[in-house]
């Protein structure tokens, strides 16, 4: 297996071409992730801890390597998630907008094809997502909720593992040049 000659950093955008997807995939995959989160925990409660919409957002932002594209997909997925939650619209929206933007920015300088990088990014973005959401909950909604560090770290590892696996399958949906 050769992941960009085992280099983790890339020198320029030319070294790692931008991945392209068909338009319907950009619509269907996030929708499926949101539906998964709405429907599957009914039967398997533990699946509620999987943040599939976040994983999908991170993936598309990373591989497309466009900050505006990343924040747009983050905002749309987040708002869709908000509209199916009990939170005011914008909580997940703002969080995922930030995540999408940062993921796309990181995607421009890191080799996001490398599984180790993907694992670390999956973990990092889960923790970042939970932290920003917690900040917004306290700061904007005034709810006195505590940030559960240990739980977040454990779930971060779980989501990172799922992210690496899911990224592998999503790679197959890329349009080949």
């Amino acid at each position, binding site marked *: 297996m050769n992941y960009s000659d085992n280099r983790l950093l890339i020198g320029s955008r030319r070294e790692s071409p931008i991945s392209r997807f068909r338009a319907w995939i950009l619509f269907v995959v996030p929708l499926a992730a949101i539906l998964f989160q709405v429907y599957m925990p*009914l039967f398997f409660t533990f699946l509620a801890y999987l943040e599939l919409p976040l994983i999908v957002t991170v993936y598309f932002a990373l591989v497309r390597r466009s900050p505006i594209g990343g*924040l747009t997909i983050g*905002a749309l997925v987040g708002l869709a*998630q908000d*509209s*199916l*939650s009990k939170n*005011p619209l914008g909580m997940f*929206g703002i969080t995922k907008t930030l995540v999408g933007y940062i993921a796309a920015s990181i995607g421009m300088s890191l080799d996001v094809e490398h599984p180790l990088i993907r694992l670390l990014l999956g973990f990092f973005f889960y923790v970042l997502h939970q932290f920003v959401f917690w900040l917004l909950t306290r700061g904007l909604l005034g709810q006195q909720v505590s940030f559960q560090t240990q739980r977040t770290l454990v779930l971060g590892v779980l989501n990172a593992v799922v992210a690496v696996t899911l990224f592998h399958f999503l790679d197959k949906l890329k349009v080949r040049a």
Partner: protein
Amino acid sequence: MDTLLNRYRNITVLLLVIFAQLVLLAYQVKNERDVRIIRMWAVTAVTPVARSIEFVRDGVTNFTGSYLFLKDAHEENGRMHKELSRLKLENQYLKNELATADRAQALSALQAHTPSRMAAARVVGTATGGNSKAVFVDRGTVAGVEKGMAVVTPDGIVGKVLAVYPTASLVLLVTDSVFAAGVVSQKNHVRGVLKGSGYGNCRVDYVPPEEKVEVGEWFYTSGDDRIFPKGMPAGKITAVRPGSPFQEILVDPSGTEKGLEEVLIVLQAVHQEIPDGKSTGADAPVYLAPPPPAAPDAENPSAGSPTGPAATATGTEADRLRERYKEIGDAQHHRFGEGVPGSKPPDFNLKVERPTPPGGTNPAAQTANSAPPVAGGPTTRAGTSPTPPPRTSVAPPAGARPAPPASTQPAAAPRQ
């Protein structure tokens, strides 16, 4: 200027998008108003998909269970095994039917006998967000559901309607960290506020240390919150810890412990009485069993009975069998326990004639058929109670299966 914008284009767009969402958020929080149109689009788009998935899942499960497995069994085992499989399947089907009927019966019984007006609904999805405890049900404004209505099951309260859409509603569960409801304890009528913990259980806040509550005691809704009708079971206390200024009371919510499939939305709440503190609580409603048929002896009504006619009328099946064997033995001058092994036993098929009570009916059987089941009351042996059993707010279910004839077998307590 153009160069500057191009240079900072990404960050500018980011700030604009976040600012727009902050304005949206501030509008909702400050005015306490929701942007219904966006949510309505999303829920209306997702609910049919969730229903379709549920329909397909149900169909696939039924198809797999009813056809494929049975077909395999048929091919492998031949006619006898096919027959066995058919019977097993039929048995399973009947069990499922019974379970479904019981669940539906419990819901319809509650719906029919509670003074509150309710609408049945089915859970079709969960709200997004790992920490949120909220579900979508398939009843909305079309069915008369409104925001703030209580959602219950026969076991207890489930939550309250947080948002309503035409074909679905979002229900905040009792276990959610922002849920709160007024409750009152069963024994000493201690008032408190039931709050979700964000996990599987709840706690009751604002109970001063001097108030007495015990582990195992039940909390019922107090009706103070004007959402839940008074007298609905909320949960059972699992732990009580002293604290200052209030006790720490953990409660296991009864409405959600068996999982959520079907729920009832309280369209019009009517308060009920809090059940008596002496009762065993909502988890173990006790039905008053009708007395078994009496078998009085004409010549000596108390013969063979250690406690006389009353015991004969209220004895168990074993008591009646023992008495019958004694009568058969007496008729053949046989004394049980005295014959050597191998000696001739008495003819147990001998019919011993019994006198018919005046009127030709069995008074005990009449009592059995007329005795009403009592839920939530103290355990009382039939026939020994000097007074009629008290009626409680939970009436016998409508359309419940008829009790077996009292003259053929003792009536059993109805299924719960």
